[in-house]
């Protein structure tokens, strides 16, 4: 992973010191809560329903074992013994005291971490493909570009008070595991017709109240222009993005209201003025950043016959092999998805002892690091295939062995009304009931890859628009109710889910999900037809029929 140099370190140290001063001034009453709010927000500190919530940045999801141990310490000493992995590859603590936050930031800085720009109307953590660096279909590792963007956007003086928050994602693979089409800016590493390496730039995707799929603003951008082009987009957005209405302030609204042609023309005109400025990247600088990524050294190994192993081993481990183990491009290695979603626990929550255990297991089996995934799981990207069984046995002692990666119970879920003051409905309890209902692992395997994503309000933190099955909590005359959507997909054929019909009560929603799954399982053409393929073939009608009958 990227190793800080003295400049990187000094910036996070000075940031921690700055926030210590700001907290002292706030506690002394020198600044009002109104003035403090944007300052704490730019350090990831939110006011939630019951307490402050601190969001810690995990650049492109990558965590070393030392960083995991620091997170475990924070969970133990400053929180209620757990941390929460988010859909943007970050980590949240739900119960810190304001007075303790400076000490937490100092601890984070000591392991090259921070909470800079994890909230507020600024450029947020750049996210990427959890399989970055190990995917077989990858053209180039996107993480050095993520790091270049992290540095360029960190305390960018012009873009600290944008109309609204701003999220960038990059993928270097043809399969889009970074959801680049539902980000403010999505970047795809591509090659043009002449084999030159560069980027496709998409702008204006997003979820929330008005979901949009991003549009291509520039089909090909040479690598050295990455930062100047981003600067041009951000400047056009900062100057002309809407500020009159919070709900229309994201760049997706600007792109949609202007039309992508007008928007692209404005960006190109601005970029023409700055493309040859000193912000232009050099091959040396990119290579230098790449060099600071201490990439793991792999042993020369042969692939194990995992299919044969699955046939001869016990059913539990065989299921884990099938569901939670991903292909690695280096022979003899595999990536392991550690599910944070056993029955009975909120998706994404991990205890301090589990974090410590993950750190130890990463050191023993995973070349010392893990990756936080968009679906709130944790991946150990570099495990020897020969170690899989031993790793599984260890994970089992920590209840980190649930073999449901990609399955129905591998749900994404926002904190909902239990924690969040924006929510209209509870989401975690519904997720827990769904997990209880679908406890037949054979049935889940038979259903195959189906994603359920749930949000407790239209702000869509649970990304319900891009769940194969999306669940949206709404307030129906003072009563919690749930809208059901079908057909969402954040991948390279990105699509937004469609509402099936009238909303369901809290008592009905789990049955409704079961009906949707049964409909698919009964009517699909073959076991190879995925839920999404089935929906794309037949549309909503069969689901409407089975859910609502003739009413």
């Amino acid at each position, binding site marked *: 992973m990227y190793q800080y*140099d*003295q*400049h990187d370190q*000094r*910036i996070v140290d*000075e*940031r921690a010191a*700055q926030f210590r*001063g*700001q907290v002292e*001034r706030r506690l002394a009453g*020198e*600044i009002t809560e109104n*003035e403090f709010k*944007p*300052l704490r927000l730019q350090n990831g500190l939110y006011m939630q329903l019951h307490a402050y919530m601190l969001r810690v940045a995990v650049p492109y999801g990558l965590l070393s074992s030392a960083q995991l141990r620091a997170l475990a310490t924070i969970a133990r000493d400053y929180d209620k013994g757990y941390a929460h992995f988010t859909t943007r590859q970050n980590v949240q603590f739900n119960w810190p005291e304001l007075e303790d936050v400076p000490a937490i930031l100092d601890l984070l800085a000591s392991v090259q971490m921070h909470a800079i720009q994890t909230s507020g*109307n600024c450029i947020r953590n750049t996210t990427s493909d959890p399989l970055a660096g190990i995917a077989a279909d990858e053209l180039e590792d996107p993480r050095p570009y993520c790091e270049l963007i992290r*540095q*360029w*956007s*960190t*305390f*960018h*003086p*012009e*873009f*600290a*008070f*944008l109309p609204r928050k701003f999220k960038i994602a990059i993928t270097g693979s043809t399969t889009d595991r970074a959801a680049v089409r539902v980000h403010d800016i999505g970047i795809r590493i591509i090659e043009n017709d002449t084999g030159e390496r560069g980027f496709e730039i998409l702008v204006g995707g997003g979820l929330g109240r008005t979901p949009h799929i991003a549009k291509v603003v520039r089909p090909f951008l040479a690598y050295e222009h990455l*930062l100047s082009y981003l600067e041009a987009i951000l*400047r056009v957005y*900062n*100057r002309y993005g809407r*500020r009159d209405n919070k709900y229309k302030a994201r760049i997706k609204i600007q792109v949609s209201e202007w039309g992508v042609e007008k928007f692209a023309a404005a960006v190109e005109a601005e970029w023409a*003025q*700055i493309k040859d*400025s*000193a*912000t232009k990247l*050099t091959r040396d*600088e990119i*290579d*230098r950043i790449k*060099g*600071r990524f201490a990439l793991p050294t792999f042993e020369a190994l042969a692939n194990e016959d995992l299919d044969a192993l699955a046939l001869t081993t016990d059913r539990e481990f065989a299921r884990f092999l099938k569901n939670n183990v991903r292909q690695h491009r280096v022979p003899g290695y595999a990536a392991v998805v550690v599910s944070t979603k056993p029955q009975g626990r909120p998706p994404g929550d991990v205890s301090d002892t589990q974090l410590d255990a993950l750190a130890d297991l990463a050191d023993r089996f995973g070349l010392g690091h893990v990756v936080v995934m968009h679906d709130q799981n944790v991946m150990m990207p570099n495990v020897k295939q020969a170690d899989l069984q031993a790793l599984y046995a260890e994970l089992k002692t920590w209840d980190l062995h649930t073999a449901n990666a990609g399955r129905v119970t591998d749900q994404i879920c926002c904190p909902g009304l239990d924690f969040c003051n924006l929510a209209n409905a509870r989401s975690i309890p519904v997720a827990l009931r769904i997990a209880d209902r679908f406890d037949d692992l054979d049935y889940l395997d038979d259903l195959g890859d189906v994603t359920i994503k749930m949000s407790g309000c239209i702000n869509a933190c649970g990304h319900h628009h891009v769940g194969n099955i999306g669940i949206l909590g709404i307030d129906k005359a003072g009563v919690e109710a749930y809208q059901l959507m079908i057909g969402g997909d954040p991948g390279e054929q990105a699509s937004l889910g469609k509402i099936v019909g009238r909303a369901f009560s809290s008592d009905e929603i789990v049955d409704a999900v079961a009906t949707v799954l049964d409909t698919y399982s009964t009517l699909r053409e073959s076991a190879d037809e995925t839920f999404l393929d089935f929906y794309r073939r037949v549309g909503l009608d069969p689901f409407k029929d089975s859910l609502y009958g003739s009413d």
Partner: protein
Amino acid sequence: MALIRNGAVAPPETWTTLGNDDALPRSGDVLVGIDRWLEQRDALRAHDGRVGVLLQPDDDALRLARALEGAALVAVAFPKFTDGRGYSSARLLRDRLGYRGELRAVGDVLPDQVFFMQRVGFDSLDLAEDKSAQTALEQLREFSVTYQAAADDARPLFRRVQRPG
């Protein structure tokens, strides 16, 4: 209200902000909006007193191209500190139009924003009422390292120092 110029507390100044239809006073320093400046520049330059241009967040700073001569000051208004358009205006004035005169942030200018303001080219900061000049001066020095190019240094960090490979 404290005025900070070039990183030090400066004596307070009195500028009268004129609307488009307000009569020009006999003397004294005045600020006018961009439309009035562009339409009446010659007359304004004959005024007995300094004349500055006051840019609102939705004013296009680039309209001042080739029209900055004679302005004693360009003031950029921050009606609310959360409205960040003035940061882009400042960069365009400095980087694009090459304005080298005094560039002042006025309005809801808080100590915690001044570090960013100085980086985008403000050399003059008219702090919001009751805000501590001392805190603002400290904030100007809060960070000793910056990554990206801005109006204060056209080079990003990797072109300023030899970073370890």
